[in-house]
Protein backbone atom coordinates (compact mmCIF):
# COMPACT_ATOMS: atom_id res chain seq x y z
CA UNK A 1 0.00 0.00 0.00
CA UNK A 2 2.62 2.41 1.09
CA UNK A 3 4.80 1.78 -1.91
CA UNK A 4 1.85 2.18 -4.20
CA UNK A 5 0.96 5.52 -2.63
CA UNK A 6 4.57 6.51 -3.10
CA UNK A 7 4.48 5.57 -6.73
CA UNK A 8 1.24 7.44 -7.29
CA UNK A 9 2.63 10.47 -5.53
CA UNK A 10 5.76 10.51 -7.65
CA UNK A 11 3.70 10.01 -10.78
CA UNK A 12 1.52 12.93 -9.82
CA UNK A 13 4.64 14.96 -9.20
CA UNK A 14 5.95 14.00 -12.61
CA UNK A 15 2.67 14.96 -14.25
CA UNK A 16 2.67 18.25 -12.39
CA UNK A 17 6.18 18.92 -13.59
CA UNK A 18 5.25 18.05 -17.12
CA UNK A 19 2.26 20.35 -16.96
CA UNK A 20 4.38 23.11 -15.57
CA UNK A 21 6.95 22.53 -18.29
CA UNK A 22 4.31 22.58 -20.98
CA UNK A 23 2.57 25.71 -19.88
CA UNK A 24 5.93 27.42 -19.57
CA UNK A 25 6.74 26.13 -23.05
CA UNK A 26 3.43 27.40 -24.39
CA UNK A 27 4.80 30.78 -23.47
CA UNK A 28 1.52 32.51 -22.76
CA UNK A 29 2.87 33.47 -19.36
CA UNK A 30 -0.37 32.67 -17.59
CA UNK A 31 -1.35 29.80 -15.38
CA UNK A 32 -3.05 26.88 -17.01
CA UNK A 33 -6.62 27.37 -15.75
CA UNK A 34 -6.83 31.00 -16.84
CA UNK A 35 -5.93 29.97 -20.39
CA UNK A 36 -9.39 28.56 -20.85
CA UNK A 37 -11.30 31.00 -23.00
CA UNK A 38 -14.71 29.76 -21.91
CA UNK A 39 -16.78 30.98 -19.05
CA UNK A 40 -17.94 27.53 -17.92
CA UNK A 41 -15.79 24.63 -16.92
CA UNK A 42 -15.38 22.19 -19.77
CA UNK A 43 -15.86 18.55 -18.87
CA UNK A 44 -16.47 15.30 -20.63
CA UNK A 45 -15.21 14.13 -23.98
CA UNK A 46 -14.84 16.47 -26.92
CA UNK A 47 -14.80 14.52 -30.17
CA UNK A 48 -12.86 16.22 -32.94
CA UNK A 49 -12.85 15.17 -36.59
CA UNK A 50 -9.81 16.75 -38.17
CA UNK A 51 -7.99 16.66 -41.51
CA UNK A 52 -5.02 14.29 -41.60
CA UNK A 53 -2.59 17.16 -42.12
CA UNK A 54 -3.51 18.44 -38.66
CA UNK A 55 -2.62 15.18 -36.90
CA UNK A 56 0.58 16.29 -35.18
CA UNK A 57 -0.53 19.80 -34.28
CA UNK A 58 -3.98 18.86 -33.05
CA UNK A 59 -2.75 15.92 -31.01
CA UNK A 60 -0.46 18.32 -29.16
CA UNK A 61 -3.18 20.95 -28.87
CA UNK A 62 -5.60 18.35 -27.54
CA UNK A 63 -3.18 17.34 -24.80
CA UNK A 64 -2.66 20.98 -23.88
CA UNK A 65 -6.40 21.58 -23.90
CA UNK A 66 -6.97 18.66 -21.53
CA UNK A 67 -4.43 20.11 -19.13
CA UNK A 68 -6.03 23.53 -19.35
CA UNK A 69 -9.45 22.00 -18.74
CA UNK A 70 -9.17 19.33 -16.06
CA UNK A 71 -11.91 16.76 -16.41
CA UNK A 72 -12.06 17.07 -20.16
CA UNK A 73 -10.86 14.58 -22.75
CA UNK A 74 -10.28 15.30 -26.40
CA UNK A 75 -10.79 12.36 -28.71
CA UNK A 76 -9.59 12.69 -32.32
CA UNK A 77 -10.46 11.07 -35.57
CA UNK A 78 -8.01 12.10 -38.26
CA UNK A 79 -8.62 11.38 -41.91
CA UNK A 80 -9.03 12.82 -45.37
CA UNK A 81 -11.40 15.78 -45.18
CA UNK A 82 -13.81 14.29 -47.70
CA UNK A 83 -13.88 11.00 -45.79
CA UNK A 84 -14.69 12.85 -42.61
CA UNK A 85 -17.51 14.77 -44.30
CA UNK A 86 -18.95 11.48 -45.53
CA UNK A 87 -18.81 10.06 -42.02
CA UNK A 88 -20.39 13.18 -40.53
CA UNK A 89 -23.13 13.04 -43.13
CA UNK A 90 -23.77 9.44 -42.07
CA UNK A 91 -24.30 10.61 -38.48
CA UNK A 92 -20.88 10.01 -36.97
CA UNK A 93 -20.82 11.48 -33.46
CA UNK A 94 -18.48 14.48 -33.47
CA UNK A 95 -18.43 17.86 -31.76
CA UNK A 96 -15.94 19.62 -33.98
CA UNK A 97 -14.88 19.31 -37.61
CA UNK A 98 -11.65 20.85 -38.90
CA UNK A 99 -11.33 20.65 -42.69
CA UNK A 100 -8.19 20.99 -44.79
CA UNK A 101 -10.05 23.04 -47.37
CA UNK A 102 -13.02 25.27 -47.95
CA UNK A 103 -14.66 22.86 -50.36
CA UNK A 104 -15.11 20.06 -47.88
CA UNK A 105 -16.36 22.43 -45.20
CA UNK A 106 -18.88 23.72 -47.73
CA UNK A 107 -19.95 20.13 -48.32
CA UNK A 108 -20.43 19.65 -44.59
CA UNK A 109 -22.45 22.86 -44.37
CA UNK A 110 -24.69 21.89 -47.27
CA UNK A 111 -25.12 18.44 -45.74
CA UNK A 112 -26.61 20.25 -42.76
CA UNK A 113 -24.27 18.83 -40.13
CA UNK A 114 -22.54 22.09 -39.20
CA UNK A 115 -23.92 24.30 -36.50
CA UNK A 116 -23.13 28.00 -36.78
CA UNK A 117 -20.57 29.65 -39.00
CA UNK A 118 -17.23 27.92 -39.77
CA UNK A 119 -14.14 29.88 -38.72
CA UNK A 120 -10.88 29.93 -40.69
CA UNK A 121 -8.01 29.07 -38.38
CA UNK A 122 -5.00 28.31 -40.57
CA UNK A 123 -3.64 28.42 -44.08
CA UNK A 124 -1.23 26.22 -45.94
CA UNK A 125 0.70 26.69 -49.15
CA UNK A 126 2.26 24.16 -51.48
CA UNK A 127 5.92 23.25 -51.33
CA UNK A 128 8.32 21.34 -53.54
CA UNK A 129 9.70 18.39 -51.62
CA UNK A 130 12.84 16.66 -52.85
CA UNK A 131 14.75 13.69 -51.44
CA UNK A 132 17.47 14.66 -48.95
CA UNK A 133 20.39 16.25 -50.76
CA UNK A 134 18.22 16.99 -53.81
CA UNK A 135 19.86 14.30 -56.01
CA UNK A 136 18.18 15.51 -59.21
CA UNK A 137 19.27 19.12 -58.55
CA UNK A 138 15.78 20.56 -58.79
CA UNK A 139 16.07 24.35 -58.71
CA UNK A 140 12.43 25.39 -58.65
CA UNK A 141 8.94 25.15 -60.04
CA UNK A 142 9.83 25.68 -63.73
CA UNK A 143 12.43 22.95 -63.42
CA UNK A 144 9.70 20.41 -62.71
CA UNK A 145 8.50 20.48 -66.33
CA UNK A 146 11.73 18.78 -67.46
CA UNK A 147 10.71 15.53 -69.11
CA UNK A 148 13.35 13.31 -67.49
CA UNK A 149 12.40 14.38 -63.99
CA UNK A 150 10.19 12.02 -61.96
CA UNK A 151 7.62 14.31 -60.39
CA UNK A 152 4.82 13.03 -58.16
CA UNK A 153 1.75 15.13 -57.37
CA UNK A 154 -1.68 14.72 -55.82
CA UNK A 155 -4.54 13.85 -58.14
CA UNK A 156 -6.66 16.88 -59.08
CA UNK A 157 -9.59 15.31 -57.18
CA UNK A 158 -7.93 15.93 -53.82
CA UNK A 159 -7.20 19.39 -52.35
CA UNK A 160 -3.41 19.36 -52.78
CA UNK A 161 -3.81 18.25 -56.39
CA UNK A 162 -6.38 20.94 -57.10
CA UNK A 163 -4.00 23.53 -55.68
CA UNK A 164 -1.17 22.12 -57.82
CA UNK A 165 -3.34 22.40 -60.92
CA UNK A 166 -4.11 26.02 -60.04
CA UNK A 167 -0.41 26.85 -59.77
CA UNK A 168 0.15 25.12 -63.11
CA UNK A 169 -2.48 27.19 -64.86
CA UNK A 170 -1.36 30.42 -63.18
CA UNK A 171 2.27 29.95 -64.16
CA UNK A 172 1.72 28.25 -67.51
CA UNK A 173 4.01 25.43 -66.47
CA UNK A 174 2.62 22.00 -67.25
CA UNK A 175 3.93 19.10 -65.19
CA UNK A 176 4.19 15.57 -66.54
CA UNK A 177 3.85 13.67 -63.27
CA UNK A 178 4.75 9.99 -63.11
CA UNK A 179 2.08 9.51 -60.48
CA UNK A 180 -0.99 11.34 -59.20
CA UNK A 181 -1.54 10.13 -55.69
CA UNK A 182 -4.77 10.12 -53.69
CA UNK A 183 -3.18 11.56 -50.57
CA UNK A 184 -0.43 14.02 -49.85
CA UNK A 185 1.21 11.49 -47.54
CA UNK A 186 1.64 9.13 -50.49
CA UNK A 187 3.40 11.89 -52.43
CA UNK A 188 5.66 12.50 -49.47
CA UNK A 189 6.40 8.78 -49.19
CA UNK A 190 7.49 8.59 -52.83
CA UNK A 191 9.84 11.53 -52.28
CA UNK A 192 11.32 10.46 -48.95
CA UNK A 193 11.96 6.97 -50.31
CA UNK A 194 13.85 8.56 -53.21
CA UNK A 195 11.58 7.02 -55.87
CA UNK A 196 10.55 10.47 -57.09
CA UNK A 197 12.87 13.36 -57.86
CA UNK A 198 10.35 15.86 -56.57
CA UNK A 199 6.85 15.99 -55.17
CA UNK A 200 4.30 18.72 -54.61
CA UNK A 201 3.09 18.68 -51.03
CA UNK A 202 2.14 21.26 -48.41
CA UNK A 203 4.65 23.42 -46.58
CA UNK A 204 3.56 21.77 -43.34
CA UNK A 205 4.34 18.33 -44.76
CA UNK A 206 7.89 19.36 -45.54
CA UNK A 207 8.26 20.77 -42.07
CA UNK A 208 6.71 17.71 -40.44
CA UNK A 209 8.87 15.32 -42.45
CA UNK A 210 11.98 16.71 -40.80
CA UNK A 211 15.20 15.40 -42.32
CA UNK A 212 13.55 12.81 -44.56
CA UNK A 213 12.91 15.42 -47.27
CA UNK A 214 14.37 18.74 -48.34
CA UNK A 215 12.56 21.52 -50.11
CA UNK A 216 13.43 24.02 -52.80
CA UNK A 217 12.14 27.61 -53.00
CA UNK A 218 8.67 27.83 -54.50
CA UNK A 219 7.61 31.51 -54.61
CA UNK A 220 4.93 30.72 -57.24
CA UNK A 221 2.93 28.91 -54.53
CA UNK A 222 2.30 32.07 -52.50
CA UNK A 223 -0.82 32.98 -54.49
CA UNK A 224 -2.51 29.63 -54.04
CA UNK A 225 -3.47 29.45 -50.41
CA UNK A 226 -5.41 26.64 -48.84
CA UNK A 227 -7.62 27.74 -45.97
CA UNK A 228 -8.52 25.49 -43.03
CA UNK A 229 -11.96 26.12 -41.53
CA UNK A 230 -13.22 24.69 -38.24
CA UNK A 231 -16.84 24.38 -37.08
CA UNK A 232 -19.09 22.82 -34.49
CA UNK A 233 -21.19 19.84 -35.45
CA UNK A 234 -24.93 19.73 -34.82
CA UNK A 235 -25.13 16.11 -33.71
CA UNK A 236 -22.36 16.73 -31.13
CA UNK A 237 -22.81 15.64 -27.53
CA UNK A 238 -20.59 18.27 -25.91
CA UNK A 239 -21.52 21.72 -27.18
CA UNK A 240 -19.60 23.65 -24.50
CA UNK A 241 -16.55 21.48 -25.02
CA UNK A 242 -16.69 21.86 -28.77
CA UNK A 243 -16.95 25.64 -28.55
CA UNK A 244 -14.08 25.73 -26.05
CA UNK A 245 -11.86 23.60 -28.27
CA UNK A 246 -12.52 25.83 -31.29
CA UNK A 247 -11.73 28.88 -29.14
CA UNK A 248 -8.54 27.17 -28.03
CA UNK A 249 -7.44 26.37 -31.59
CA UNK A 250 -8.18 29.88 -32.84
CA UNK A 251 -6.70 31.45 -29.70
CA UNK A 252 -3.05 32.24 -28.91
CA UNK A 253 -2.08 28.70 -27.90
CA UNK A 254 -3.51 27.27 -31.11
CA UNK A 255 -1.98 30.02 -33.21
CA UNK A 256 1.46 29.31 -31.76
CA UNK A 257 1.27 25.54 -32.27
CA UNK A 258 -0.03 25.94 -35.82
CA UNK A 259 2.69 28.41 -36.71
CA UNK A 260 5.33 26.09 -35.29
CA UNK A 261 4.03 23.38 -37.62
CA UNK A 262 4.36 25.66 -40.63
CA UNK A 263 0.74 26.79 -41.01
CA UNK A 264 0.09 30.38 -42.00
CA UNK A 265 -2.36 32.89 -40.52
CA UNK A 266 -5.90 32.68 -41.86
Amino acid sequence: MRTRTGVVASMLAAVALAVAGCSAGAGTGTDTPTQTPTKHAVTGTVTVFAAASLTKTFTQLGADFEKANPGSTVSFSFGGSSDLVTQLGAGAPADVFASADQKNMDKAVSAGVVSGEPVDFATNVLAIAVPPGNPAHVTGWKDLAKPDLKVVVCAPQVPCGAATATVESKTGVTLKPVSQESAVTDVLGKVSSGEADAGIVYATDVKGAGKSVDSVPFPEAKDVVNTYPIAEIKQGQNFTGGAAFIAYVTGPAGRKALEAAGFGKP
Partner: protein
Amino acid sequence: MTPRRAPASTGIPGWVLVVAALGALFVLLPVVAMVTRVDWTHFVALITSPSSVDALLLSLRTSVAATAGCLVLGIPMAVVLARVPFRGRGLVRAIVLLPLVLPPVVGGIALLALYGRRGLLDGALPIAFSTPAVVIAQTFVALPFLVLSLEGALRTTGQRYEAVAATLGARPSAVLFRVTLPLVTPAIVSGSILSFARALGEFGATLTFAGSLQGTTRTLPLEIYLQRETDPDTAVALSLVLIAVAIAVVAVAHGAGEPLRRRPRPGTAPRGASRPAAGATP
Protein backbone atom coordinates in the same frame (compact mmCIF):
# COMPACT_ATOMS: atom_id res chain seq x y z
CA MET B 1 -28.45 -27.80 -55.91
CA THR B 2 -29.60 -26.18 -52.71
CA PRO B 3 -33.29 -27.17 -52.75
CA ARG B 4 -32.38 -30.79 -53.31
CA ARG B 5 -30.34 -30.87 -50.14
CA ALA B 6 -32.80 -31.56 -47.31
CA PRO B 7 -31.46 -30.33 -43.99
CA ALA B 8 -32.91 -33.32 -42.18
CA SER B 9 -30.82 -35.81 -44.09
CA THR B 10 -27.50 -34.06 -43.61
CA GLY B 11 -27.23 -34.95 -39.96
CA ILE B 12 -26.00 -31.43 -39.25
CA PRO B 13 -27.51 -29.70 -36.24
CA GLY B 14 -30.07 -27.06 -37.09
CA TRP B 15 -28.19 -24.31 -35.29
CA VAL B 16 -25.18 -24.85 -37.53
CA LEU B 17 -27.41 -24.12 -40.52
CA VAL B 18 -28.67 -20.97 -38.82
CA VAL B 19 -25.18 -19.68 -38.08
CA ALA B 20 -24.07 -20.60 -41.59
CA ALA B 21 -26.97 -18.61 -43.00
CA LEU B 22 -26.01 -15.67 -40.81
CA GLY B 23 -22.46 -15.97 -42.10
CA ALA B 24 -23.67 -15.87 -45.68
CA LEU B 25 -25.77 -12.80 -44.91
CA PHE B 26 -22.77 -11.18 -43.22
CA VAL B 27 -20.93 -11.35 -46.53
CA LEU B 28 -23.86 -10.71 -48.81
CA LEU B 29 -25.69 -7.85 -47.10
CA PRO B 30 -22.96 -5.18 -47.42
CA VAL B 31 -22.73 -5.94 -51.13
CA VAL B 32 -26.50 -5.74 -51.49
CA ALA B 33 -26.48 -2.46 -49.56
CA MET B 34 -23.88 -1.12 -51.96
CA VAL B 35 -25.94 -2.15 -54.97
CA THR B 36 -28.87 -0.14 -53.60
CA ARG B 37 -26.62 2.93 -53.71
CA VAL B 38 -25.89 2.60 -57.42
CA ASP B 39 -27.01 5.55 -59.48
CA TRP B 40 -28.54 3.49 -62.29
CA THR B 41 -29.56 6.44 -64.46
CA HIS B 42 -25.93 7.45 -64.92
CA PHE B 43 -24.42 4.02 -64.43
CA VAL B 44 -23.29 3.48 -68.01
CA ALA B 45 -21.89 6.99 -68.28
CA LEU B 46 -20.04 6.61 -65.00
CA ILE B 47 -18.37 3.33 -65.87
CA THR B 48 -17.53 4.24 -69.46
CA SER B 49 -15.67 7.43 -68.69
CA PRO B 50 -12.11 7.32 -70.07
CA SER B 51 -10.55 7.06 -66.63
CA SER B 52 -12.87 4.19 -65.65
CA VAL B 53 -12.24 2.26 -68.85
CA ASP B 54 -8.48 2.80 -68.55
CA ALA B 55 -8.56 1.55 -64.99
CA LEU B 56 -10.62 -1.53 -65.84
CA LEU B 57 -8.47 -2.50 -68.81
CA LEU B 58 -5.29 -1.94 -66.84
CA SER B 59 -6.62 -4.05 -63.99
CA LEU B 60 -7.54 -6.91 -66.32
CA ARG B 61 -4.21 -6.74 -68.14
CA THR B 62 -2.08 -6.65 -65.04
CA SER B 63 -4.13 -9.30 -63.23
CA VAL B 64 -3.78 -11.72 -66.16
CA ALA B 65 -0.04 -11.06 -66.25
CA ALA B 66 0.20 -11.51 -62.49
CA THR B 67 -1.73 -14.79 -62.67
CA ALA B 68 0.66 -16.01 -65.37
CA GLY B 69 3.55 -15.02 -63.13
CA CYS B 70 1.98 -16.91 -60.24
CA LEU B 71 1.63 -20.04 -62.40
CA VAL B 72 5.21 -19.88 -63.64
CA LEU B 73 6.69 -19.35 -60.19
CA GLY B 74 4.04 -21.01 -58.05
CA ILE B 75 3.71 -24.44 -59.67
CA PRO B 76 7.40 -25.33 -59.17
CA MET B 77 7.24 -23.89 -55.65
CA ALA B 78 4.23 -26.04 -54.78
CA VAL B 79 5.81 -29.14 -56.32
CA VAL B 80 9.01 -28.65 -54.34
CA LEU B 81 7.14 -28.00 -51.11
CA ALA B 82 4.91 -31.03 -51.59
CA ARG B 83 7.40 -33.53 -52.99
CA VAL B 84 10.94 -32.63 -51.98
CA PRO B 85 11.74 -33.31 -48.34
CA PHE B 86 14.38 -30.94 -47.07
CA ARG B 87 15.35 -29.41 -43.80
CA GLY B 88 13.61 -26.14 -43.05
CA ARG B 89 10.69 -26.87 -45.35
CA GLY B 90 8.27 -25.57 -42.75
CA LEU B 91 10.18 -22.33 -42.56
CA VAL B 92 10.25 -21.96 -46.34
CA ARG B 93 6.53 -22.59 -46.49
CA ALA B 94 5.95 -19.94 -43.84
CA ILE B 95 8.02 -17.46 -45.85
CA VAL B 96 6.11 -18.27 -49.04
CA LEU B 97 2.87 -17.57 -47.24
CA LEU B 98 4.16 -14.31 -45.81
CA PRO B 99 2.47 -12.04 -48.41
CA LEU B 100 -0.82 -13.60 -47.35
CA VAL B 101 -0.59 -12.29 -43.81
CA LEU B 102 1.36 -9.10 -44.47
CA PRO B 103 -0.70 -5.95 -44.73
CA PRO B 104 -0.41 -5.04 -48.44
CA VAL B 105 1.12 -1.69 -47.59
CA VAL B 106 3.94 -3.52 -45.83
CA GLY B 107 4.34 -5.62 -48.95
CA GLY B 108 4.65 -2.42 -50.96
CA ILE B 109 7.28 -1.06 -48.63
CA ALA B 110 9.20 -4.33 -48.83
CA LEU B 111 9.07 -4.33 -52.64
CA LEU B 112 10.28 -0.74 -52.62
CA ALA B 113 13.14 -1.71 -50.34
CA LEU B 114 14.28 -4.25 -52.93
CA TYR B 115 13.41 -2.82 -56.33
CA GLY B 116 13.35 0.87 -55.46
CA ARG B 117 15.83 3.41 -56.68
CA ARG B 118 17.54 3.28 -53.33
CA GLY B 119 16.66 -0.35 -52.77
CA LEU B 120 18.95 -3.34 -52.40
CA LEU B 121 19.10 -3.79 -56.17
CA ASP B 122 20.24 -0.19 -56.37
CA GLY B 123 17.63 0.66 -58.96
CA ALA B 124 18.95 -1.94 -61.42
CA LEU B 125 15.34 -2.58 -62.48
CA PRO B 126 13.92 0.87 -63.29
CA ILE B 127 10.32 -0.13 -62.79
CA ALA B 128 9.07 2.54 -60.40
CA PHE B 129 5.84 4.18 -61.58
CA SER B 130 5.48 1.66 -64.41
CA THR B 131 2.96 -1.05 -65.24
CA PRO B 132 5.48 -3.85 -64.52
CA ALA B 133 5.65 -2.52 -60.97
CA VAL B 134 1.90 -3.12 -60.68
CA VAL B 135 2.29 -6.67 -61.97
CA ILE B 136 5.12 -7.35 -59.53
CA ALA B 137 3.04 -6.04 -56.62
CA GLN B 138 0.06 -8.16 -57.69
CA THR B 139 2.15 -11.28 -58.22
CA PHE B 140 3.75 -10.81 -54.82
CA VAL B 141 0.43 -10.73 -52.99
CA ALA B 142 -1.29 -13.37 -55.15
CA LEU B 143 1.43 -16.03 -55.26
CA PRO B 144 0.63 -17.68 -51.90
CA PHE B 145 -2.92 -18.45 -53.04
CA LEU B 146 -1.66 -20.57 -55.91
CA VAL B 147 1.10 -22.25 -53.94
CA LEU B 148 -1.19 -22.98 -51.03
CA SER B 149 -4.03 -24.59 -52.98
CA LEU B 150 -1.71 -26.50 -55.28
CA GLU B 151 0.52 -27.87 -52.54
CA GLY B 152 -2.51 -29.13 -50.64
CA ALA B 153 -3.82 -30.87 -53.74
CA LEU B 154 -0.45 -32.43 -54.52
CA ARG B 155 -0.27 -33.85 -51.02
CA THR B 156 -3.74 -35.36 -51.12
CA THR B 157 -3.29 -36.98 -54.54
CA GLY B 158 -0.20 -38.79 -53.36
CA GLN B 159 2.70 -40.14 -55.39
CA ARG B 160 1.51 -43.56 -56.47
CA TYR B 161 0.92 -42.73 -60.10
CA GLU B 162 4.13 -40.80 -60.32
CA ALA B 163 5.99 -43.80 -58.97
CA VAL B 164 4.28 -46.07 -61.49
CA ALA B 165 5.08 -43.71 -64.36
CA ALA B 166 8.69 -43.55 -63.25
CA THR B 167 9.03 -47.31 -63.08
CA LEU B 168 7.61 -47.48 -66.59
CA GLY B 169 10.53 -45.36 -67.71
CA ALA B 170 9.08 -41.85 -67.81
CA ARG B 171 11.61 -39.09 -67.24
CA PRO B 172 10.98 -36.69 -64.33
CA SER B 173 9.75 -33.90 -66.62
CA ALA B 174 7.41 -36.28 -68.39
CA VAL B 175 6.06 -37.47 -65.05
CA LEU B 176 5.53 -33.87 -63.97
CA PHE B 177 3.70 -32.80 -67.12
CA ARG B 178 1.79 -35.98 -67.89
CA VAL B 179 0.98 -37.35 -64.44
CA THR B 180 1.54 -34.92 -61.59
CA LEU B 181 0.08 -31.75 -63.06
CA PRO B 182 -2.91 -33.34 -64.87
CA LEU B 183 -3.85 -34.88 -61.54
CA VAL B 184 -4.08 -31.50 -59.89
CA THR B 185 -5.60 -29.52 -62.76
CA PRO B 186 -8.63 -28.54 -60.66
CA ALA B 187 -6.33 -27.13 -58.00
CA ILE B 188 -4.33 -25.25 -60.63
CA VAL B 189 -7.58 -23.80 -61.99
CA SER B 190 -8.92 -22.81 -58.59
CA GLY B 191 -5.54 -21.51 -57.46
CA SER B 192 -5.34 -19.39 -60.59
CA ILE B 193 -8.80 -17.99 -59.94
CA LEU B 194 -7.87 -17.09 -56.39
CA SER B 195 -4.64 -15.50 -57.57
CA PHE B 196 -6.42 -13.57 -60.29
CA ALA B 197 -9.03 -12.34 -57.84
CA ARG B 198 -6.40 -11.32 -55.34
CA ALA B 199 -4.44 -9.51 -58.05
CA LEU B 200 -7.59 -7.76 -59.24
CA GLY B 201 -8.27 -6.46 -55.76
CA GLU B 202 -4.69 -5.49 -54.99
CA PHE B 203 -4.53 -1.99 -53.63
CA GLY B 204 -2.04 -1.31 -50.84
CA ALA B 205 1.12 -2.66 -52.37
CA THR B 206 0.34 -1.04 -55.72
CA LEU B 207 -0.33 2.31 -54.10
CA THR B 208 2.89 2.17 -52.12
CA PHE B 209 5.12 0.63 -54.76
CA ALA B 210 3.83 1.62 -58.19
CA GLY B 211 2.04 4.92 -57.76
CA SER B 212 -1.19 6.01 -59.39
CA LEU B 213 -1.30 7.30 -62.95
CA GLN B 214 -4.22 6.84 -65.32
CA GLY B 215 -3.60 4.07 -67.84
CA THR B 216 -0.20 3.18 -66.40
CA THR B 217 -0.50 2.27 -62.74
CA ARG B 218 -3.98 3.34 -61.63
CA THR B 219 -5.84 0.05 -61.43
CA LEU B 220 -9.54 -0.21 -60.71
CA PRO B 221 -9.21 -0.31 -56.90
CA LEU B 222 -6.98 2.78 -56.99
CA GLU B 223 -9.44 4.53 -59.29
CA ILE B 224 -12.29 3.69 -56.92
CA TYR B 225 -10.29 5.00 -53.98
CA LEU B 226 -9.56 8.25 -55.83
CA GLN B 227 -13.06 8.77 -57.21
CA ARG B 228 -14.49 8.35 -53.73
CA GLU B 229 -12.86 11.67 -52.86
CA THR B 230 -15.01 13.70 -55.20
CA ASP B 231 -17.46 11.43 -56.91
CA PRO B 232 -18.92 8.72 -54.68
CA ASP B 233 -21.39 7.73 -57.42
CA THR B 234 -18.57 6.75 -59.74
CA ALA B 235 -16.82 4.95 -56.91
CA VAL B 236 -19.94 2.89 -56.19
CA ALA B 237 -20.54 2.18 -59.88
CA LEU B 238 -16.94 1.04 -60.36
CA SER B 239 -17.14 -1.08 -57.22
CA LEU B 240 -20.09 -2.86 -58.76
CA VAL B 241 -18.09 -3.41 -61.95
CA LEU B 242 -15.28 -4.92 -59.89
CA ILE B 243 -17.74 -7.22 -58.14
CA ALA B 244 -19.30 -8.19 -61.46
CA VAL B 245 -15.90 -8.98 -62.96
CA ALA B 246 -14.99 -11.04 -59.90
CA ILE B 247 -18.26 -12.99 -60.01
CA ALA B 248 -17.93 -13.52 -63.76
CA VAL B 249 -14.38 -14.83 -63.39
CA VAL B 250 -15.35 -17.19 -60.61
CA ALA B 251 -18.45 -18.39 -62.47
CA VAL B 252 -16.64 -18.99 -65.74
CA ALA B 253 -13.74 -20.73 -64.08
CA HIS B 254 -16.04 -22.72 -61.83
CA GLY B 255 -18.07 -23.82 -64.84
CA ALA B 256 -14.88 -24.79 -66.65
CA GLY B 257 -13.44 -26.49 -63.62
CA GLU B 258 -16.59 -28.33 -62.61
CA PRO B 259 -16.21 -31.46 -64.72
CA LEU B 260 -12.55 -31.60 -63.74
CA ARG B 261 -13.27 -30.92 -60.13
CA ARG B 262 -15.70 -33.79 -59.87
CA ARG B 263 -13.00 -36.38 -60.50
CA PRO B 264 -10.39 -36.39 -57.76
CA ARG B 265 -12.26 -34.29 -55.24
CA PRO B 266 -14.33 -37.07 -53.70
CA GLY B 267 -10.99 -38.30 -52.47
CA THR B 268 -11.94 -41.94 -52.45
CA ALA B 269 -9.40 -44.14 -54.11
CA PRO B 270 -11.45 -45.95 -56.79
CA ARG B 271 -12.99 -42.82 -58.30
CA GLY B 272 -9.85 -40.79 -58.11
CA ALA B 273 -7.82 -43.70 -59.39
CA SER B 274 -9.54 -44.39 -62.67
CA ARG B 275 -9.51 -40.79 -63.84
CA PRO B 276 -5.90 -39.73 -63.50
CA ALA B 277 -4.81 -42.85 -65.28
CA ALA B 278 -7.10 -41.91 -68.15
CA GLY B 279 -5.87 -38.35 -68.00
CA ALA B 280 -2.28 -39.48 -68.11
CA THR B 281 -2.54 -41.76 -71.11
CA PRO B 282 -3.06 -39.27 -73.98
